[in-house]
């Protein structure tokens, strides 16, 4: 008897999400491979956050299908939510609780075994050890981002969804966060979907880039192939080409 192949970490098929009459996501499909880091690019209102929210089971699709680790979202979300996690600027960890208290609460929610050891380990990895007993609200923006990242990694997720993980961080902290994410993915063979406006970040971290515009996928390829196809040197130029629906150079000439 043949063994069933493992389901893909994330599979999105003809996903449509309409808010009242406005389509936020308009028939997109993609599948992510295990251990991959994929960038989701797009301007404001392109549908990135809605796509991520639907993958997390936070929003119900109008039509189409989303599955995570073989579980249909949101119907079967409780089969897999303990194997997923996320970070987003739209949500925060409670500010009045200390870092350790927050980690304890989220660790218990995710059913993490050996929670004390896990908190200590994350403290060491994310340089939070000295901050563990301080209220989260009294930390700097960079420290808070590291706490959010610690929350996102508390359960060693197989699928990690990140929405603007380095927004509003200084270049040094942002670089540090990227390095840690890359290390985590390599070590854990976790699948990461990263929505970002930061093209340099996407270029550095992602082996695949999905570009969205007005709820649709405009392009989907490796960064190298995208650069070659658009005849550009940076992903930012490719992004501008897609966003403006034509060549940057042509616009400049006009």
């Amino acid at each position, binding site marked *: 008897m043949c063994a069933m192949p493992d389901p893909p970490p994330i599979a999105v098929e003809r996903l449509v*999400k309409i*808010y009242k009459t406005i389509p*936020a996501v308009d028939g997109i499909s993609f599948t992510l491979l295990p251990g991959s880091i994929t960038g989701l690019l797009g301007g404001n209102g392109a549908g990135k*956050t*809605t796509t991520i*929210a639907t993958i*997390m*089971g*936070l*929003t*119900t699709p109008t039509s189409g299908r989303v599955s995570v680790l073989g579980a249909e979202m*949101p119907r*079967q979300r*409780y*089969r897999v*939510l*303990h*194997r*997923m996690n*996320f970070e*987003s600027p*739209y*949500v*925060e*960890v*409670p*500010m*009045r*609780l*200390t870092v350790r*208290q927050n980690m*304890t*609460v*989220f660790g*218990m*929610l*995710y*059913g*993490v*075994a*050996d929670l004390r050891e*896990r908190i200590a380990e994350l403290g060491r990895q994310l340089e939070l050890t000295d901050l563990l007993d301080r*209220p989260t609200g009294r930390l700097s923006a960079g420290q808070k981002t590291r706490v959010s990242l610690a*929350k996102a990694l508390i*359960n*060693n*997720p*197989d699928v990690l969804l990140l929405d603007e993980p380095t927004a509003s961080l200084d270049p040094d902290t942002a670089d540090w966060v990227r390095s840690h994410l890359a290390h985590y993915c390599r070590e854990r063979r976790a699948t990461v979907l990263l929505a970002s406006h930061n093209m340099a970040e996407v270029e550095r971290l992602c082996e695949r880039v999905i570009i969205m515009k007005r709820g649709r996928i405009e392009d989907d390829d490796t960064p190298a192939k995208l650069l070659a196809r658009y005849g550009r040197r940076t992903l930012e130029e490719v992004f501008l080409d897609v966003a403006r629906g034509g060549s940057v150079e042509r616009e400049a000439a006009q």
Partner: protein
Amino acid sequence: MTGRAESAYALSLQRIAAMMLRYWYLLRSSWPRLLDLVYWPTVQMVTWGFLQYYITSNAGFFARAGGTFIGAVLLWDILFRGQLGFSISFLEEMWSRNIGNLMMSPLRPMEFIAALMVMSVVRLSIGAVPVTFLAIGFFGFNLYGLGLALVAFFFNLMLTSWAIGIFVSGLILRNGMGAENLAWSIMFLFMPLTCVYYPVTTLPVWLQPVAWALPPTYVFEGMRALLIHQVYRGDLMLDALALNAVLFAAGVYGFLKLLQGARRHGSLMQTGE
């Protein structure tokens, strides 16, 4: 992966405990929050206690009988603070923008509700128990003198407060913080209708069926029967329990439907106004 796989319907005591721990940490971290729990119940009790004291020397038998006002105040506070305790714990998640973290975690809605119910009892105990002792010291009114009847009153009032708190939380999830005021004010709609300070017969005849459709009415009538006539009305408590079962089921059903609507409309991503 360190998490545990579970079926969609399994309830986890650990996750309920996690949420209770979260609210306990929060209460512990802020003395104004603790003070607030005791402040209003004390002010209410003292004000109505003095009114009762005045009436005792000037009014007729029924108004004077056995501390009906102060008893009503204390029972009303169980109803009001029970709902507020539930709703404020829920609102803490909205204020701290943490609701997305919870909704995307393995926490089930029923586990969330269970934790909020327990925390409403904890908050109520912190606020109301010292006030009941103050009532003994200031006015000689011993709520615990109601004996086992108090257990029936308390249980029925808490069930109503949870049902209302659950439904209001659903409304806030679905409609955002624009619906926050409901959490603070909805119980006052029940105050005149549930006849906290006067018998149901005081209401116009056409309004009395509405009063009898609300479980707290039976509790306040039961309290007056006990304090004025020294009769425990078990029948009233059973009626209240039956109505509460319906109200609680409706509250949970409404919450789940509103949560479903929030997922459909993307409200969980935008928890502001």
